[in-house]
């Protein structure tokens, strides 16, 4: 039974992208897990949803724009990306993201998807 369980990691992103390194630190973990062929999913909740919003340009404020790296996820086999509808609504944000494969989930579905992962790290 135990052997048939595929281990997977959920990275729960909860910080806006620029004022601290949380998003970048989580991204580095996602890329390395992807490189080692480990299943990894990204979840965006709270201010973490800002990491997904289209039209940002960190270079204006001298931030190395790591959000551009999100577009390379396919090469790291990262294809499950979930965003919490409640967090978008609270911020009056439309579902307009800078990458394509984002799935908007209501609170219950978001919570349910998290439980499909054995390890959850939050940044």
């Amino acid at each position, binding site marked *: 039974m135990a052997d048939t369980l595929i281990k997977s990691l959920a990275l729960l992103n909860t910080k806006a992208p620029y004022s601290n390194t949380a998003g970048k630190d989580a991204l580095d973990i996602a890329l390395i897990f992807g490189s080692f062929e480990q299943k990894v999913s990204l979840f965006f909740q709270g201010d973490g949803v800002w990491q997904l919003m289209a039209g940002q340009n960190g270079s204006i404020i001298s931030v190395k724009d790591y959000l551009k790296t999100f577009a390379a996820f396919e090469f790291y086999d990262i294809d499950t990306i979930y965003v919490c509808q409640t967090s978008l609504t609270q911020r009056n944000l439309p579902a307009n993201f800078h990458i394509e494969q984002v799935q908007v989930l209501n609170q219950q579905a978001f*919570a349910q998807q998290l439980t499909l992962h054995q*390890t959850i790290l939050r940044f």
Partner: protein
Amino acid sequence: MATLHIVRQSAYNTDDFAQCLQVLNTNDVIVFIDDGCYNLQHSLLNTIESSKNIQLQVITQHASARAVSINDAIFTKITMDDLVSLTFENDRVITWQ
């Protein structure tokens, strides 16, 4: 298939606890430690649906150190030994810090 939620921050200061409550599933366990102990009288607690059968636990030492009193009718008092045990009794752990 329960999740252990370790809450380490005051909800008066950060959104962590509110976010934790958003992802609760039936039979999950919440343990308040560190500044999470300041949430023991927070109004957010009233938003937890009783049908979800959520267990609320507190590390006694952490609450006592902060002069936070624990309502026995709501919270289970635990020790660090219990927290270690809960790590394995539940299927996964999320740390809210």
